[in-house]
């Protein structure tokens, strides 16, 4: 067997399944977003759905809320992952248990933490109860609204809970691979702790966690369960809006649901392409 045949044979099953399911699904979604649905007798081909999308105030509000949640949770994830990973680099008693807990969220499903966030941060939740016991609030209505709130704080909390360990583990492995030598060298040449961090550690960490941040951003951009459970019905995030349109009994809402979903896929694809371009320019290759 030549090398070429081997590679083709190894890749063929995976590629063909993904072409059928992924590309096939995407193509069908695209066609329906143009109003082409022969199964229910809609044979037109138009871009009406996209036109009404950008004229629709609910869509624009949803897009804004979605972007706010994704961008803020991704940036906060990066900052907190670096801070916690730097702290977990140190030796301390009970480190094994703390380390285990630090990695614990990686495998836990999002819905479990959404449920936990309801139980802790709703106005009758554990946080409010502790605040009452501590004499901070007299009544549960005085507890700040952080679940189903305007800013999506409960949603952001769940994303941080899940993502900080995911990025943090990557930061830890970067720190381990790099060792203490560069930092020590910088310090011995008179750099302050902050300068050593800013000019030695940070430039190494940031490129290493960029791919993970893109994954975090695209996940939070498309996630459905968490904002459905912890968000407001209006305005909602873009995926919940798309699902609502899709489940509408009126089949005329179908093209608009598809257009919303296709917009999401296109938005993330463009983001990834731009990111790869930027990366290519930064490192001077490809």
């Amino acid at each position: 067997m030549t090398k070429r045949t081997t590679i083709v044979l190894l890749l063929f099953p995976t590629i063909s399944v993904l072409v059928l399911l992924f590309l096939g699904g995407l193509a069908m979604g695209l066609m329906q977003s143009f109003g082409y649905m022969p199964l229910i007798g809609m044979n037109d081909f138009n871009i009406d759905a996209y036109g009404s999308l950008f004229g629709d105030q609910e869509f624009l509000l949803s897009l804004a809320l979605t972007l706010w949640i994704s961008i803020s949770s991704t940036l906060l994830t990066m900052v907190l992952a670096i801070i916690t990973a730097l702290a977990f680099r140190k030796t301390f008693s009970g480190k094994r248990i703390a380390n285990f807990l630090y990695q614990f969220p990686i495998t836990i499903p999002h819905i479990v933490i959404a449920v936990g966030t309801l139980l802790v941060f709703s106005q009758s939740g554990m946080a409010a109860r502790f605040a009452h016991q501590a004499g901070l609030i007299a009544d549960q209505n005085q507890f700040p609204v952080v679940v189903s709130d305007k800013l999506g704080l409960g949603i952001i909390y769940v994303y941080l809970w899940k993502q900080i360990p995911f990025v943090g583990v990557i930061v830890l492995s970067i720190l381990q691979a790099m060792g203490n030598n560069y930092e020590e060298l910088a310090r011995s040449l008179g750099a302050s702790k902050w300068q050593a961090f800013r000019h030695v550690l940070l430039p190494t960490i940031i490129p290493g966690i960029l791919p993970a941040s893109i994954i975090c951003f695209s996940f939070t951009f498309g996630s459905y369960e968490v904002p459905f459970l912890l968000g407001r019905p209006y305005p909602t995030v873009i995926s919940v809006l798309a699902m609502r349109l899709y489940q509408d009994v009126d089949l005329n809402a179908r093209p608009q649901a598809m257009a919303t979903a296709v917009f999401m896929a296109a938005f993330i694809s463009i983001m990834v392409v731009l990111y790869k371009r930027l990366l290519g320019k930064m490192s001077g290759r490809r």
Partner: protein
Amino acid sequence: MDIEDTKASPLHWIVYIGVIVSVLGPLIPQFIWPFAKSWFFPDLLPSVWSVRAWEYIANPNSQVLEAVWNSLVIAVLVTCISVLLGVPAGKALGMYRFRGKGLVELFILAPSIIPGLAVTMGIHVVFIRLGLSDTLLGVVLVHLIPTIPYMTISMSGIFANYDPDFEEQARSLGASTFKTFFIITLPAIFPGIVTGAMFAFLISWGQYLLTVLIGGGRVITLPLLLFSFAASRDNAFMSALSIIFLLPAIIILFFTSKFLSGKSSSMGGFGTI
């Protein structure tokens, strides 16, 4: 730098305690609520205890056992198919250089990054036509969209660190391709396969949106039940289901924590985006 610098300072302890509190905080009430009958504000513990949530779960009419069974069957099937497809593809990406490799990698990675709503809604129409919607098989097929990329990329990370010389030696000593695979390759990559497979299992186990779209509410899985209890804010039931939903994740974490810490190469493949 002296040895002092590698020890934790009070500032570090604030971080450790912060991590422990915020990780465990949302989980602890979930272990108390399933035993509560009445637990009103501002009580820190229930005033009346009860096990009705567990009785409900054990009751065959409640659909919970059926949902657990469905979730398990789907996740096991999805995992097996992902391993069968992902290991060879991961080998091609991890061990060979070829023209267009970057493009192939990007294509395989795309389904795990691009929001799956458009794809799944698009597939739904075809599946209705083929009689695959509202069936277990249909749900298994859509779950493959996020798991196959995951498995392939993980395995390419494993194969990138794998030394092919051993295979050459076995073959030069007269071993067949199959024999070489089972005696040389498989033992070397087995820990990587296990880690990847466990995560593929978890991805399928935790899937809500794809299941509800393609299963049409007919294929009941655990996340579907949990989601509907959570949406109706029934604290006792949703917490009990949440604990069952959580169990595989905890078991798997015990197995994989040593793979994840530090030098894991199964995560390394994601550096390609």
